[in-house]
């Protein structure tokens, strides 16, 4: 899915999807996970403002020649204030681990097999509780190594 990038005035599911896509460098984020995660983020009073600010700063950076392919947050670090920088890291951690760490409420799982920590080893290492190799499928190295 191509992402149309422009500064936004109000937060929405689509803006959350775009900022998630920008921070994770992925255009194919699972739609159900985006919706679920958006609802959890919106439980935080500061979330709408942070989603919008981080989105707009990245869009502005891209409009000024920032590459979308590499270390977006590091390259934008000088433009983020402390809160924005924290939020971008928080969003990235939530996407990778599939776990939302609240400051005051109990930790919550928001994604399992769609968590991005599984992305780089898909087809190589089975996702725990979800994928299996079949009997003896573990005796040789996977295709990745051959």
């Amino acid at each position, binding site marked *: 899915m191509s992402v149309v990038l422009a500064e936004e005035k109000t937060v929405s599911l689509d803006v959350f999807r775009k900022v998630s896509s920008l921070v994770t460098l992925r255009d194919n984020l699972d739609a159900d996970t985006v919706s679920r995660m958006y609802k959890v983020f919106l439980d935080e009073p500061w979330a709408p403002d942070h989603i919008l600010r981080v989105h707009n700063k990245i869009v502005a950076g891209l409009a000024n020649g920032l590459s979308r392919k590499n270390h977006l947050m590091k390259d934008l670090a000088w433009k983020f204030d402390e809160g924005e920088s924290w939020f971008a890291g928080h969003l990235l*951690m939530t996407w990778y681990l599939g*776990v939302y760490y609240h400051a005051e409420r109990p930790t919550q799982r928001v994604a399992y097999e769609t968590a991005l920590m599984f992305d780089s080893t898909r087809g190589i*290492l089975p996702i*725990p*509780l979800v994928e299996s*190799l079949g009997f003896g499928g*573990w005796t040789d190295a996977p295709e*990745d*190594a051959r």
Partner: protein
Amino acid sequence: MSGTIDANVIIIGSGVAGAMTACKLAQLGVRDIVIVEAGPRIDRAETVKKFRASPFIDSSSGYPNPDYAPRPDWNDAKNPYIEKTGPAFLNEEYLRVVGGTTWHWGGCTPRFRPVDFRLASAYGVGADWPVDYDTLEPFYTEAEEEIGIAGEEDDGSPRSKPYPMARIPSSYCDKVIAEGLKPMGITFNARPSARASRPYNGRGQCQGFGTCSPICPSGAQYAAIYHVEKAEKLGVRVVDTTRAERIHADGKITSVEARKPDGSLVTLRGKIYVVAANGIETPRLLLMSAGERRPRGIANTSGLVGRYFMEHPALTCRLKMPRPVYSSRGPESIVTSSDFRDGPFRRERPSSMLSIEHPPRFHETADGLLRQGLEPPKIDADVKDALTRMAEMNIGIEQLPDRQNGITLNWDKRDRAGQPLTRLYYSFGSYEQAGFAFARDMFKKIAASLQAQIVSLGDPVPQFHLMGMTRMGNDPKTSVADSFGRSHDHKNLFILSSSLFPSASSVNPTLTLAALCLRAGHEISRQLKVGN
């Protein structure tokens, strides 16, 4: 609602010990057997779903932890279920559900070696057992058939019959490590395991989910729920959500008080009573049953109930291998080295078991890299590199029985069920410290031989093997029960738990416990026939 349950045999606990004993008794023709279990029944598929929905990366969060049958919970540090005292780290874990803790075990089922039963005689340390290997061997064989064990060699424990199933094949990682350690002279054997390498008694072949603990999604790994279901088919009544909290005695055991979740009392009366409630809850129940006539608790004339707690403390070493080994493919552990299990060194340092482990480490790995500030695309490459090159090894040691290690009750503090809190003192002596020093040195040599980097080599951690606190022996002054698990004090009380072990060996205790239960089953049956 209060009630009374009368039966021939009352068994407290539905884990591997209780369920297997019940089956054995039923097979021997004993009728009217009741198992009471504190926890609820659970469903495998639902439990897998709960783990996938849980934010915690542990072995228990998918299982119930209700107020009426509480258990240890690592994720609730503010309200510890067990009060820890003593200098050594201990973080115990077990379940209170129908089927017990084998729902989330690693399924490793080695036999003890003959010398493990006479540690004191052979090496002058620890304690001897009141039963020897030759006596137990037929019951080991029977337990392996009941549980369904896949294995290969005898590994120093002579066998009268081959394993019921062929071994689980080694993983690619196992083979790379075994090859890399050949120059050191280290050899690996198939680790006997309760995983089906072929369809076995209704269980399918292992599919390699790699999550033996917290749960085997396919059911190829044995869990005591198989024996619970088998017992029920043989006519055994299993009463769940009924927590035993007090045993009454008048010379013999006369009844057990239990509570339902609504607080109502259930009185259990039988001819024979079996306490099979795991290595901590078993001595705890005996101690909780203290009264005016028995201030030390039930079965405790010796004063040794709750003493001599032993674990298999282990050092875990995580390595970064020079090339990918794809560790988390296949069952969690397939091979071990028994090279350090026995020898004259046991006079000074413990028996040790070296194993290659394959737990999935996605969360810890990604979390660690995120906290270093990594972001895409580098984090993806680094996660892949770290996970595919990771290898994990474990050295678990034999802990000596030490009288000061064990539990007492804190009557001033209560758990969520209103029962006195368990207070557990735990420490290591110079014998164990020598084992840890050996393990640390061994891991450094292993890393060098594999040309690998040590990523982490931490402090000793428990393996959740709970042994020793109702030790068996021939002398009532120095032990709690005889070689059948029968209380020296109350002839109609059998204690069937790994708490019977007078010494620990360095290998997983469940198979030895199962063998003890099968042997005890014959004795209980005999005792009922001759009029108790």
